[in-house]
């Protein structure tokens, strides 16, 4: 049996959203609770009203200039410049550059690594970190 607090939490679950919008059946736990609780019947009615009115109140047309720009972009094959987050990339590159130096301070590096020299090691570290960040961003985008 749902408590009133649990009932208020359940309002935002997808099965309840569908029921509130008239797109799905009333979940059984909600149905049982509504039968015995007048206060939550009011809460349910308010939630239903909000679901119907808020999208209308929050929506407004896009400016004509934006629609025109998007129209042109479509004709050009959606060649809008992607937003590259340079800040994150540079931050990770800096971390990658500093890490080999810290590792060298912490203890002796393997001879094949030490042979590269501090500058090369930092450059390699920065490149790896920048590439890893870019790959992570691309993966996140692809997974959607």
């Amino acid at each position: 049996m749902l408590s009133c607090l649990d009932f208020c939490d359940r309002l935002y679950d997808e099965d309840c959203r569908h029921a509130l919008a008239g797109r799905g059946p009333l979940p059984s736990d909600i149905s049982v609770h509504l039968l015995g609780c007048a206060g939550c019947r009011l809460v349910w009615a308010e939630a239903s009203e909000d679901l119907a009115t808020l999208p209308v109140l929050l929506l407004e047309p896009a400016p004509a200039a934006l629609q025109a720009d998007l129209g042109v972009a479509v004709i050009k094959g959606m060649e809008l410049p992607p937003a590259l987050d340079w800040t994150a990339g540079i931050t990770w590159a800096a971390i990658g550059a500093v890490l080999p130096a810290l590792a060298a301070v912490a203890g002796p590096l393997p001879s094949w690594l030490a042979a590269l020299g501090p500058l090369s090691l930092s450059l390699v570290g920065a490149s790896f970190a920048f590439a890893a960040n870019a790959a992570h961003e691309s993966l996140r985008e692809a997974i959607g």
Partner: protein
Amino acid sequence: MPGEAAGDLDSEKTRERELVRRCVAGDVAAQHELVRRYSALVWSLCIRAGLSPAEAEDVSQEIFWRAFQALPGFRGNSRLSTWLSTVALRRIVDHHRSPARRDIAVGAPSDPGFPLPKQPASPSPETDAELSQRRQRVRAALDGLAEPARSVLVAYYLGEIPVLEIARILRMPEGTIKTHLHRGRQTLRDHLRDLC
């Protein structure tokens, strides 16, 4: 009836899948149709999440760019509007988090001289006045909400993004998202109550 509504939803999903198929195949008319259908949604998500009109224009364009890149991956499991809203919310959250954004002194829409977007046209002058008044109340109430409460409310009600997905994008517990929704709704209802 829920059954009829579910049937409508299914046929809408079929139409959306067809639109996406044509877009991915390079049909420019379909791509125009997608932009025409959803530009208001994307723009509203940006502007209601607290972006200035100039920022909202730039971010809206980036959202459509990202959406077109990711469109071949759309499987039709959710409505196209929800999928697009998810793409939009990710970009808006990134924008809110970017250090460049934090350095910009952006005024609130309630500030004098802040360039507000145009109101939509409605068929009846009476309805137009009432709707306009209610929109202003909602906007004022949203201005009073801090981030991420504002974006949560907009994502759930306008973008129809499920709570779990909002929680994933914002990296917050599901319960926190529900708390933001509950408090945000109460704030909006308080602002609208005087009009009823």
